[in-house]
């Protein structure tokens, strides 16, 4: 036990006492994620922000103006009246993306309808411009409303089907939970893996390549203790790295989803403790896999090459959280590492009633896999073919 602690401490010091490494492992991931997601959020919100539209109307009617005139506090569009002779000029502007919409009402529309004429209304938009399409959709809605109003005036009530939309009160927590469950598991698995990837290969393949591992192997310390010390320290360091990324994403959520979504308060201490416990058990499986691959690799470069496909595979497993409704209900699937973490996280975030069972199976499975990986690593440390292959 003392030797495991000594090895743990040395691995810990290697990262903590190296300012550059500490920055790149503990601070940079969180900082980068915060900046990237904040940038994405800002870009998306500026894209979706309602901008005032430019609408030119030929022969406007006061009844239609009453419909589109905004309420107080709403965005005021630039609606102008143009003469029919100016249509071509404005069409050119629409084509150039400098104007959004032209609505050409026939002259004396309302009188014509009363007299029994079927009137035609022309609309001109630019299908290549998002803003033009958005304004078209909005004004199409106003025109439908206007059309109904005109029908009512002419034929009285034309409504044959009445819609009454009713639903139970929206549970905000459930909506936010579902949103988190679709997004977070993939990110969490990615953060854990990338955290472990930034230090694991260096600690094993790097030491092997540089010959510092051999210095350790000529001491009487048991290979199993070396394996346990390395996996334990790499696990804790990777978890801290993942927490840094996690903090980064939490801080960027208000920008990403809007200031009014406060997901931190919908989960209590229990949920947070479960998430931490789950991540703690998962990180050792990930570190175990990375350590075994790193021990097998001849050098640091080969370790990186071998680990990348495994990383991509875990991301694919993480993406599975975006499909399906809620956590998987087949208990035996919780024996599969990484997949079980993704599904259990979904269960926690969506307040699944079977969470205790899922959590127990997942942690049990992760412990068994970690033990098996440490045993394998121990065997590899004992193999001169693997440890001293050139």
């Amino acid at each position, binding site marked *: 036990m*003392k*030797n495991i602690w*000594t*090895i743990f401490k*040395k691995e810990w*010091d*290697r990262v903590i*006492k*190296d300012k550059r490494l500490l920055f790149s492992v503990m601070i940079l991931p969180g900082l980068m994620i915060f900046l990237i997601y904040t940038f994405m959020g800002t870009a998306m919100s500026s894209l979706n922000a309602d901008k005032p539209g430019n609408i030119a109307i030929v022969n406007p009617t006061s009844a239609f103006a009453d419909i589109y005139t905004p309420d107080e506090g709403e965005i005021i569009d630039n609606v102008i009246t143009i003469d029919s002779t100016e249509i071509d000029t404005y069409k050119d502007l629409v084509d150039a993306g400098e104007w959004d919409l032209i609505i050409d009402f026939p002259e004396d529309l309302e009188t014509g309808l009363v007299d029994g004429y079927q009137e035609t209304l022309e609309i001109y938009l630019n299908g290549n411009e998002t803003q033009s399409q958005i304004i078209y959709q909005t004004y199409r809605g106003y025109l439908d409303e206007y059309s109904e109003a005109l029908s009512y005036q002419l034929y009285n009530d034309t409504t044959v089907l009445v819609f009454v939309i009713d639903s139970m009160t929206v549970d905000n927590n459930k909506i936010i939970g579902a949103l988190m469950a679709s997004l977070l598991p993939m990110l969490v698995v990615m953060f854990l893996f990338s955290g472990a990837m930034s230090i694991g290969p260096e600690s094993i393949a790097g*030491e092997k390549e*540089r*010959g*510092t591992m*051999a*210095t*350790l*192997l*000529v*001491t*009487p*310390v*048991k290979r199993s203790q070396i394996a346990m010390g390395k996996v334990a320290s790499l696990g804790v360091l990777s978890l801290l790295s993942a927490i840094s990324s996690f903090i980064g994403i939490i801080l960027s959520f208000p920008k990403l989803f809007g200031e009014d979504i406060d997901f931190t308060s919908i989960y209590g201490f229990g949920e947070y403790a479960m998430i931490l416990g789950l991540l703690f058990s998962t990180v050792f499986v990930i570190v175990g896999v990375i350590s075994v691959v790193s021990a097998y690799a001849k050098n640091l470069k080969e370790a990186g090459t071998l680990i990348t496909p495994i990383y991509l595979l875990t991301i694919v497993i993480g993406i599975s959280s975006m499909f399906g409704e809620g956590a998987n209900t087949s208990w035996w699937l919780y024996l599969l590492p990484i997949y079980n973490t993704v599904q259990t996280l979904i269960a926690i975030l969506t307040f699944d009633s079977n969470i205790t069972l899922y959590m127990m199976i997942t942690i049990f499975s992760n412990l068994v896999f970690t033990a098996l990986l440490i045993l394998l690593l121990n065997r590899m440390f004992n193999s*001169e073919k693997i440890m*001293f292959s*050139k």
Partner: protein
Amino acid sequence: MEAQVIIKDITKTFILSKKQQKIERVNNKHKVAVNGLSFEAYKGEIYGLLGPNGAGKTTALRCISTLIKPDSGDIIVNGHSVMTDPEKVRESIGFLTSDLKLEAFFTPNYLFDYFAHLRGIDENIIQTRKKQLFEKLGIDRFAEVKVGELSTGMCQKVQIAISLLHDPAVIVFDEPTNGLDVLTAKVVTDYLTELKNAGKTIIISTHIFSVVEKICDRVGIIINGKLLLAKTIGEVGGTEANLENQFFDLVASESEEA
């Protein structure tokens, strides 16, 4: 004389990769690095393994240190077999070879403590041994300088200090003066003589005749993995020139046989 290291008919074969076969210009996939090697090293003596590059010296020493296992035969170090009790062997051995490196990021002070803790040495003894070895080898002024920033000679001295921190009964040094300037080399050879006088069993490998002649009590000449001569320094004539002549005669007859 009490034999503290007994090498009993060990053989070690390596499988060469295609690339290694090309470099060594051979078609055979298997390379016999050590072939039926047997010798003994006694308490309070320095045994020198002399041989050209690729003769099998380092492989033999790596087998003694338990880094690799012989394919056949056995080695008994301080009463323990490398085949069945490697951890006990590691406890009583101090091993130095160019393949063993120290982490460049840490200081000699940190690494000394780290390896001493791994060997389960008491804190008080660690500090006493550290002071003693660092002073002896002139490391004390560089104790807080990162290994990566030390010169080759100083690095070698730190490596020596760490290999001896547990005061081992058996010391196995592979080319201990390789790459060192004459002053540093003298510090090392003088210290080895001092350790021999303190009753340690020392095995060194070298291809430098003067080192053998100056500090070794007995010499074993190894060529192509086989021990072709094992005599005391007195028996080989006691001078560097005599040793050199016998060595070249053996190399010539071995290449004729090949």
